């Protein structure tokens, strides 16, 4: 009997072995590259750095966390990061809703692929190119002010500010909100809506009591993308942010790439980890993972 045939037979007779063979490679990947990296980060957050020679001093000290909590600068940076991530999520949710609704409910077989292509189009070009494009649009002599001037309106001065970050983030992550929302809206059976109206619910009431609850998992799933992607970003604040636009990621980046203080960066990086853990717990409560 050839080896491959005997292997097939063995795997067929023992289903547990089959599952183990399938899962082992991704599991090794996960443990080695993901969990080990997180563990290394967590451990090094208790180390310190010699300030003149830049050498890392191993040990167990809470100095980095004490410095983080003792200086309100870092609290402000954390609140700014979380606040803008929340604002972007909210805006994307509001913008995505009508678009996804039209795509799922009204668009015909020709319009729907066209709308889908529109959503995906920005993802075809580089993230960096799109952020730089916004930098040019929002600059003092940029396209926005050129347009406002043409309309006889006063010039806007939002280049290099938190407003610029909010606009750019909202634009960048919108597709990640539309797609899961569209998927969950599309799955609602039309019969439920008919039943609702047969039972006397007006359009608004059907929307509020039937459509919104059923679309909730998609909305929450989309918000995980928009929230976590904003929370972890540092390039957009660097390129379109102004003075006082640093994110947690910028402080981490500056401490690794500029100050060479990796332990302090690791300590600050623990915070978004905790925020995301909390967010995912709430998302599970809201049923974001029910469809998985």
């Amino acid at each position: 009997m050839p080896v491959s045939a005997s292997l097939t037979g063995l795997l067929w007779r023992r289903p547990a072995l089959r599952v183990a063979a399938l899962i082992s490679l991704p599991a090794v990947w996960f443990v080695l590259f993901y969990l080990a990296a997180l563990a290394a980060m967590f451990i090094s957050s208790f180390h310190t750095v010699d300030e003149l020679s830049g050498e890392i001093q191993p040990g167990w000290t809470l100095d980095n966390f004490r410095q983080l909590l003792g200086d309100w600068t870092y609290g402000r940076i954390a609140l700014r990061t979380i606040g803008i991530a929340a604002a972007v999520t909210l805006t994307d949710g509001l913008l995505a809703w009508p678009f996804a609704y039209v795509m799922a409910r009204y668009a015909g077989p020709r319009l729907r692929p066209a709308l889908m292509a529109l959503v995906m189009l920005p993802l075809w070009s580089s993230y960096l190119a799109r952020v730089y494009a916004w930098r040019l649009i929002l600059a003092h002599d940029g396209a926005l002010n050129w347009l406002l001037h043409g309309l006889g309106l006063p010039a806007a001065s939002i280049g290099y500010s938190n407003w610029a970050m909010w606009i750019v983030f909202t634009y960048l992550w919108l597709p990640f909100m539309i797609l899961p929302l569209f998927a969950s809206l599309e799955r609602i059976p039309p019969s439920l809506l008919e039943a609702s109206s047969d039972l006397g619910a007006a359009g608004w009431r059907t929307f509020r009591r039937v459509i919104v609850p059923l679309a909730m998992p998609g909305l929450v799933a989309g918000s995980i993308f928009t929230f976590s992607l904003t929370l972890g970003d540092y390039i957009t604040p660097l390129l379109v942010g102004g003075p006082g636009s640093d994110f947690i990621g910028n402080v981490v980046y500056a401490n690794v790439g500029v100050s060479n203080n990796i332990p302090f960066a690791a300590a600050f990086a623990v915070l978004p980890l905790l925020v995301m853990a909390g967010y995912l717990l709430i998302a599970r409560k809201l049923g974001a993972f029910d469809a998985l």
Partner: protein
Amino acid sequence: MKVSMSCLTRAARMAAAMIVTLALPFGQAASAAEPLSAIGKGEGALNIVAWEGYAQDDWVKPFEAKTGCKVNRKYAGSSDEMVALMRSGGGGQYDLVSASGDATLRLIYGHNVQPINIALIPAWTNFIPALQGPSFNTVKGVHYGVSYEWGPNTLLYNTQKVTPAPTSWSVIYDEANKGKITVPDNPIQIADAALYLSKTTPSLGITDPYELTQPQMDAVVVLLKKQRPLIRKYWALASDEIDLFRNGDATLGAAWPYQTNTLQAAKVPVADTLPTEGVTGWADTWMVSAKSPHPNCAYEWINYVTTPYVQAQQAIYFGETPANTLACAEMDKQQAGSCKQYHADAGASYFDQIHFWKTPLKACGNGQDNCLDYGAWQRAWQEIKG
């Protein structure tokens, strides 16, 4: 039983060692190697960390053709970034760095750079005396680098939007210019504010802008925090500042002559000036990594860029002053009047006017030990930026 126990502890120890290795990706710096005794055959490659404008094709291409050393460039926006790059990955990723005086001591005490055999650098004897063995790259008579070029940090302004032409640093702290100002995103920028305060508020007693006590630093932080709402953007790379001036976002800024030259070449109406309060500045040094994989190419590079011809090219391109005195005649040959324009003939008096960047240390110059070290400067800068 005993065997399995020892096996277990060994496994545990190995696991612990693995975690420590993972947690310490940036290991111990190597002890400095002996300097090269003769320049051998080039290794075919050279990895450089440099300021923007320091590795231009104008002199990199001829160097590659002459020596066969292929140059890989990495630009850094601040001295901190240069130090971090030279230490990254254990220190063997780069061969050379164009370190300014506020990075050199950190690299020397961190054992990140190796001693230089000056006998192998023929141009060195023609350097101005102040740059043959300056305290920022020569420790106890050992040379850890070769001086290159030097210059002032200037006040850059848009000549159409800013009238009359400014003569004082006060314009970058002035409410009237809100939203039009840009300054470097760099803790050493604190020294610029300290220099300004040393002239406008003499009661603070600031004598050296790099030696600040806590009360003096507090006053500087107050000034810079008041400046923050006036800032359009803190620039990280010289090209950021160039963009800001080109797109009309900024009309005033702390800059290098390089930005002025680049913007003027692009027909943007800008000029720069050395304000009356005085200026900070830089004196750069080429340093060879302690773990340089291509030391022969590194020496070849130092020798090439210290020749009068390349010294002149670099000086005119960036707008700075060469270390090699023979470069003056060469500068006038390449661009008439440039020797005088960039002070290559000015000598010691002009050199002494500039407060060159240096690493802030706990020890003040006056024997006191109550000054703030660079770590405190970095924390103050983060606090200022918010």
